[in-house]
């Protein structure tokens, strides 16, 4: 296909030279999108605004292990040659802190004003398959239940998603065993595979096609399609960790008094890190914050965690009074009762909870220990 000839049809796969991705980024900003994607910050690849192609962590990768993350230089100049970092797209669809509404007090009445601040139209650049599944899970939580979360909905409906098929797996990745990757199969507008000098671009939606309109590209060859498939196959084959999901919910329910819970409680800090980096965890706390002049008050929603002792505190005390009960709650919800609640596992195998646990507790190892597997 010669690209200058108009909008590429949905379902087509085209090839662009690598620097042309910069033109797509420019186009997104011009069209009113706030482009967020991988970028270098502090000591990790985080998700933040991507103004230009040079903001991507070109030539960088990450080394990950349980409780350990290090940035490393690559020998090539790959644009997406790393796995997922500490942030997920949850930061943008379900922000850590949101004002839900404010209340103004008058002499004999009060006015409630919902927060209707305009939300940005995000273009998510570089979304991995595990995270597409995570977004789909949060859709079930915030959009598909009996109540729709208006704040999530406003952000979600506007978001344009450009996926990237994974070319490397971190040692903490286990999406293949969860059936959530590494190939992105749905939930994106465009999907990229990084070849040596080009990107293969799958155009999945009219919105994605509109972004590619006028962008110099050509039709993909059969060889290129094959090469792209082999890249993702190789990533799948290189994955070291796995989680055996066979009959897992029943297995966990039948082992609520397993001694392993005591052992993991000795190591667990109950610090909340695993739940915060988890792209599907959605627990939150509501708080009234009165203004100092007494004239108004705000209702604030913040990320919270089942590992925060305060989270389960109610009249009569805390129904998860120790670390053992909190860890068990998290693992059994994530891998078992989540399935009862939402029809899918709450785990997408991204490995963030493994990497970002300060003491390196590994969800795959804990589940395997309950099962009695030898690891």
């Amino acid at each position, binding site marked *: 296909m010669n690209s200058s000839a108009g909008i590429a049809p949905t379902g087509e796969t085209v090839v662009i030279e690598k620097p042309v991705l910069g033109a797509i980024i420019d186009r997104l900003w011009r069209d009113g999108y706030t482009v967020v994607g991988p970028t270098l910050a502090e000591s990790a690849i985080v998700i933040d605004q991507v103004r230009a192609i040079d903001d991507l962590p070109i030539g960088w990768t990450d080394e990950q292990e349980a409780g350990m993350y290090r940035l490393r230089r690559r020998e090539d100049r790959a644009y997406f040659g790393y796995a997922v970092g500490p942030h997920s797209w949850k930061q943008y669809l379900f922000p850590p802190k949101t004002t839900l509404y404010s209340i103004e007090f008058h002499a004999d009445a009060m006015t409630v004003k919902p927060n209707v601040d305009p939300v940005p139209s995000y273009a998510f650049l570089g979304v991995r398959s595990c995270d597409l599944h995570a977004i789909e899970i949060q859709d079930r939580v915030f959009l598909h239940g009996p109540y729709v979360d208006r704040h999530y909905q406003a952000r979600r409906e506007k978001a344009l998603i450009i996926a990237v098929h994974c070319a490397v797996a971190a040692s903490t990745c286990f999406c293949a065993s969860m059936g959530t990757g590494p190939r992105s199969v749905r939930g994106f507008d465009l999907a990229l595979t990084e070849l040596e000098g080009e990107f293969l671009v799958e155009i999945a939606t009219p919105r994605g096609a509109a972004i590619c309109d006028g962008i110099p590209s050509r039709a993909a060859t059969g060889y290129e399609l094959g090469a792209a498939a082999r890249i993702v196959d190789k990533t799948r084959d290189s994955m070291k960790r796995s989680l055996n999901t066979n009959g897992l919910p029943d297995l966990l329910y039948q082992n609520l008094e397993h001694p392993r819970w005591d052992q993991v409680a000795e190591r667990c800090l109950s610090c909340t890190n695993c739940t915060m980096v988890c792209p599907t965890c959605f627990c939150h706390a509501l708080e009234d914050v009165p203004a*100092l002049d007494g004239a108004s008050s705000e209702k604030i929603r913040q990320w919270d965690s089942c590992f*925060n002792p305060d989270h389960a505190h109610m009249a009569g005390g805390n129904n998860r009074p120790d670390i053992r009960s909190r860890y068990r709650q998290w693992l059994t919800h994530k891998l078992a009762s989540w399935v009862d609640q939402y029809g899918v596992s709450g785990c997408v195998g991204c490995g963030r909870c493994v990497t970002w646990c300060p003491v390196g507790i590994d969800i795959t190892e804990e589940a395997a220990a309950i099962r009695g597997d030898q690891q």
Partner: protein
Amino acid sequence: MNVPRPRLGVFKFASCDGCQLSILDCEDEILAVADRVEIAYFLEATRRPLEGGFDVSLVEGSISSPEQIDQIKDVRERSKFIVAIGACANGGGIQGLRNFISIEESIAAVYANPSYVKTLEKSRPIADFITVDLELQGCPINKYQLLNVIAQMLVGAKPRVPDHAVCLDCKRRNIVCVVVSQGKACMGPVTSTGCEALCPAHDRGCFACYGPSHQPNTAALASRFESIGVPSDQIRRFFHAFYSTSQEFVAEGLRHV
């Protein structure tokens, strides 16, 4: 809203005045409460003499000398509600480092002629002597946390002071974990919130100046410190620096000598 104007007192014991400075640092915000609260006693800011009772007293500092015991009891009698503010008032503070050695040893180390020094053997928190109604941690306290407590009290709500680990705040602020990404020692996983993750936001590990979080798993964190090569005496200092009255921190520190 018709709320009677409560009388507020600010009292100081053994301390560096840093928490009182945090109150003075509320320049802009204090105007919003100026006509809702009567600041009846605050030597760092005004010269009004100590008279009458107080609806709310903010108490800074630890109890470190014999006469302070009488003074804090007097403050209690004058006050309906006492908020102990800061690491000194609630955990003994930096001066609590002397609690780990003999008093003779520490006096001799500081004073050339110690004959006139009247001191208690240990630097002790306010709650060892009187009933404290609310504790605000930190060295120094966070002014926004204090203002929020005042705002909550003014609307008649029970003040809420969370004590979860600092990590939750790091993640709410998108701060990358310095333990995982750089192998730095950080007390955040066992330290109470309140500072909004100030040190990790500046690429440093947490120093635990807000004291222990709820049910801190100190042994697991100390074992992690060992595995990333933190020397034993440094692990002890992490646990003993600010809250020498916390049983969990003191016991963990003593395991690393």
